[in-house]
């Protein structure tokens, strides 16, 4: 097969990254014959969720005016140029009841877990399915990867986990089911392999590898089937979860073969970049590449683990994020928190800009995404789970109008908003998390 488009080595670019010149993925690096080029005429709707930890400073976040005349608040300033593709949402609460016999804490573990599930996590490991995974079941089945989960912090990064709760809760926002949290990948190289394979250049070798994997998965299915007969009921139900994983990977391999997804011949990213901004940009680039190549249409991304104690000396905040988010109304600390919020939004805005300038079908990638950006608490100081800071960025294929500040009635459950979002993606379900019924996004 002749592939004429010249592919630029990622390593060349990463060397530049090491030199603190953060280059984005260049168009030249996208190999020829990606799914996009073959099906460019049909734009697809993509979903994204970007999570930021430890709440925000509401006074700096929310515009005071409602509707189309809203003013760009200080925290949202970096998104000003995308105003027509920006829906600011306020008034949503996430206070689902705790599991029977447990207390309501509204702490950090609750914030991240509820963000896409609107379910209060339990002491024993249990929450609820998240909307990205509901979408992955529906719109994700046509792509090589149903969904992609990314993050910037690992559990080893020195951050603590919430009091007496599993670190799972603060480390993910994606749940395939009530007892199936999905791990978030923070290593760009590994994420790259998930998207494009392990870089086996030779097509024949790749096919052989796919065959070997398929036969392993085949026999794993038999093995689990046999095991299920001999284990206890709870283990059996866990095993069916594993079986689901086996099927999922099988599907994925078949699709990779069917779509003949080119595994790019450039080197995958090596290691984790030195700085937060470089790391964030690289992870956003991977999302951009995933959308563009139609490798997946569902991405979740945590810019920090909930409860994150990351320091941001590069923007003049050498303090750990979590402690200063309990700012006790100290103006200095509040200003620093607002600076972190602004910083996160500005890095996100660079990604949005890239989406805006990337042609996709009859418009741009930005026209065909809906990215939910936000936090699981409004004010970090009091862990306030009401009036959550949430944005929807992107044209959503014309299904969600931007340029507005949509203020819901006080007390509207977050899950009602989830229901309506799902509806815009063509997924109609009656109930999700703590929902009482859909809301109007018009």
């Amino acid at each position, binding site marked *: 097969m002749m592939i004429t488009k010249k592919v630029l080595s990622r390593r060349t670019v990463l060397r530049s990254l090491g030199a603190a010149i953060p280059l984005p993925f260049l168009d030249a690096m996208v190999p020829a014959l990606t799914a996009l080029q073959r099906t460019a005429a049909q734009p697809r709707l993509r979903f994204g969720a970007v999570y930021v930890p430890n709440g925000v400073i509401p006074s700096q976040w929310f515009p005071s005016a409602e509707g189309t005349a809203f003013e760009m608040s200080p925290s949202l300033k970096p998104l000003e140029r995308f105003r027509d593709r920006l829906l600011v949402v306020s008034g949503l609460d996430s206070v689902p009841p705790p599991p029977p016999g447990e207390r309501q804490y509204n702490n950090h573990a609750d914030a991240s877990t509820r963000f896409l599930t609107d379910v209060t996590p339990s002491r024993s490991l249990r929450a609820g399915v998240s909307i990205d995974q509901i979408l992955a079941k529906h719109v994700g089945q046509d792509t090589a990867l149903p969904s992609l989960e990314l993050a910037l912090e690992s559990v080893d990064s*020195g951050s603590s986990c919430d009091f007496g709760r599993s670190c799972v809760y603060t480390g993910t926002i994606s749940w395939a089911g009530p007892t199936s*949290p999905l791990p978030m990948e923070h290593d760009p190289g590994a994420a790259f392999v998930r998207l494009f394979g392990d870089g086996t250049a030779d097509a024949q070798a790749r096919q052989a590898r796919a065959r070997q994997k398929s036969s392993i998965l085949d026999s794993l299915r038999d093995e689990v089937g046999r095991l299920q007969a001999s284990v206890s009921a709870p283990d059996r139900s866990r095993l069916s979860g594993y079986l689901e994983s086996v099927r999922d990977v099988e599907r994925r391999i078949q699709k990779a073969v069917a779509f003949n997804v080119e595994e790019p011949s450039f080197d995958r990213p090596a290691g984790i970049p030195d700085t937060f901004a470089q790391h964030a940009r690289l992870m956003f680039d991977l999302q951009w590449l995933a959308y563009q190549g139609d490798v997946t249409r569902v991405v979740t991304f945590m810019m920090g683990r909930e409860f994150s104690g990351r320091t941001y000396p590069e923007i003049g905040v050498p303090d750990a994020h979590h402690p200063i988010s309990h700012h006790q109304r100290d103006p200095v600390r509040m200003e620093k928190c607002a600076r972190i919020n602004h910083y996160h939004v500005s890095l996100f805005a660079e990604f949005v800009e890239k989406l805006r300038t990337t042609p996709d079908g009859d418009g741009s990638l930005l026209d065909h995404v809906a990215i939910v950006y936000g936090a699981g608490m409004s004010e970090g100081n009091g862990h306030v789970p009401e009036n959550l800071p949430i944005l929807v960025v992107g044209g959503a294929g014309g299904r969600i109008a931007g340029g507005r500040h949509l203020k819901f009635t006080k007390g509207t459950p977050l899950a009602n908003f989830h229901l309506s979002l799902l509806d815009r993606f063509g997924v109609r379900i009656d109930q999700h998390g703590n929902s009482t019924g859909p809301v109007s996004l018009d």
Partner: protein
Amino acid sequence: MHVHFAHGAAVVALAWAGLAWGAGPSASLGAVGGAGQQPSPEVDLRAFVSTYCAGCHNDRLRTGGLSLTDPALADPASHPELWEKVLHKVSTGQMPPPRQARPDPALLGRIVTNVTNTLDRNAELRSDPGRSGAHRLNRTEYGNAVRDLLGVTIDTSALLLQDEADDGFDNIASSLALSPAHLERYLTAAREISRLAVGDPSLGESTRSATYRVPRLLEQDVRLGDDLPFGSRGGLAVRHQFPLTGEYAFKIRLRRQVYDYIVGMGRAQDLDLRIDGKRVKRFRVGGEATGTPGPQTWNGEIVGDTPYELYLHAADAGLEVRAQVTAGVHVVSASFVDTPWEPEGVAQPLAVDFGRGSDEQFDGLAAVDALTVNGPYRGASAGDTASRRLIFSCGLGRRSLGEGGPAAAAEEARCARRILTRLARRAYRRPPTAEEMATLLGFYDAGAKARGFEAGVQSAIERMLVSFNFLFRIEREPAAAAGASYRVADLDLASRLSFFLWNSIPDETLLALAERNQLHEPAVLTQQVSRMLRDARASSLVTGFAGQWLGVRKAQGVLPDPNVFPEFDENLRRAFQRETTMFVESQIAADRSIVDLITADYSFVNERLAQHYGLRGVSGERFRRVTLSDGIRGGILGQGTVLMVTSYPDRTAPVVRGFWVLESLLGMPPPPPPPDIPDLKTVTEDGRPLSMRAQMERHRQSPACSVCHVRMDPLGFSLENFDAIGRWRQTSGGIPVDASSVFPDGTPIDGVAGLRAFIVKHQDSYIHTFVSKMLTYALGRQLDYRDQPAIRRIVRDAAASGHRWSAIVRGIALSTPFQMGRTAS
């Protein structure tokens, strides 16, 4: 051992009637409140509750959601969950709360003893060992298992996804989920490992590249580890797995400063590349810059002459050498030859701040940024590795396809069966079933047909490593009623032991004993525990258990604020971690009492750490044991690891430290803070600013806050003489440090010595907590009230030895939760 519930209740009722409380061991405690006669236990307890508890915990107030006045709840044996909670609160002095009437110690002692006895007796009659269910191997366990099974060293953090922790440990079954992303990683890892293990010649077909980076904040002015030669400076040493015997290329990249100039190029320096300590090449680098230099720091658009610029950007371009290396694990190192440019023995101030930022960048010392190993190149072959010796036990040489005819093929198949049966037995921790062997041999056949005998074995190993039998610990349950207790099969016990003590799979000795059904015999088990503790693999107790409990692992990710602590660098972080690790190792090796972790009068330091701690007479990079008689540094409470991970980046956090002591050492974690935390008052009513301590004292006056802070704060304040990176200080922000306060039980706590004394005074709580933590780690599940009797028994049994490590480990291995399982209900 299991008693059906209905029977159990009857037996318990009998026990209640037959074993009068007052006749128990505490009868000698004597009369209470002037009563002439000992009341019956029921009356005694009821009176206690109504006097000291029911004021708040009644049906009307239900403080903390709890009423104790319901007569139906009065029997501890029937309501163990409730009474374990009450017992914990009362025996640790948390209840009755401060400023409420307190029972006299004799009465309290009797109540605690009696309730404890009732609960323990009840637990023996109705044992509930708990269950954790299928248990996925975590990253560490997987890496160790692969090491022990195949002799392959892998970087698990690169190959596998991170594991999330719960209750402080990353081996808790319920938090070890499996997702498609995990499975994909396992598939990739299995292929990589199996190919490395057999020395798959096709590994040589594509160039492999591994880059090892040196942390930016690691100062390279001294010898940096035991794997580096004496007289060396800086650099790094890595244990690299060479897949094949062949030629490899080694490339060294030097450290750059922020504007991408290579650091330390002002003079020539020698740089050695070594393999297993043997020098492969000595490079000379630096000192050849010509032309007008550019400014060392940012100075607009000014740059140096072109030759200067080129040299400063590319002086390390030729630091590359090729060498023939045999397959297997070798230590590769790159380090400078230490040529002192100042007299030795004269302590120089640490380079910090602007000095580190600019002054040394041209004239100072060059440093290694990364080492890359590429290859193999040209005619690579499998070679003779430990892995191959482990795997290819039948002495069949490498044959090309079809060579030797059908007779040879049959011989190979027999050999493959022997190899795979042996490996599967260890990988699955039990003899493989016929079906499992058929699966593996199927993969062998397919691989062997396509690419020969060894490829067949590789393919079968690849399949073995993604088997759920390898990736998961799944225990066989007997066909018994739901919720029934049973003794775990010996093979499952072997796995429990090896994952607890070694974080790895059982060895041949354990498997053989288990197959003969002897492992569970107490004498055999005790002997095996001792053997296992002497084995090098038991270091996982230090890294896995103590490393997580004491924050050594967490210290890896902590980054103190460079503006406040410019002297903090990677060397100091490593020194902290090394100190705590060596200290715990020494405690286990000497089989000390676990209380000695708090009270020991020694530690391990090198020159850097000694300077940091203000200790004299220690020079050089070697860590050595030092006796500490100042009452400041002894034990974990004076160690940088603990003090740093319980601080904020820019300052100490007494609340965090206090919480840590309560949670990790005393087992009394305060509940999470309420959602709506009142703001700290930073100024007085008339506008004067308040010190942090004064703010916190005001905060404590609010009843909602005081209930927890009244206990956390004094413990945290006692460590205030240590700053956020563990340095001793007398003042903070110009104000003398006040490290004294009073615990709610009236005990004054003054400084770290006071805190040590406080913990020793409450060593029952400390020991109980230590055992709970270790039992959590040993079982890989959350503990609950049902495990409390077992913990108390382990504590009691270890008391005879003065709570030595070995006694506690043995007690856990012999305990009901460790030896038994419960069928699902």
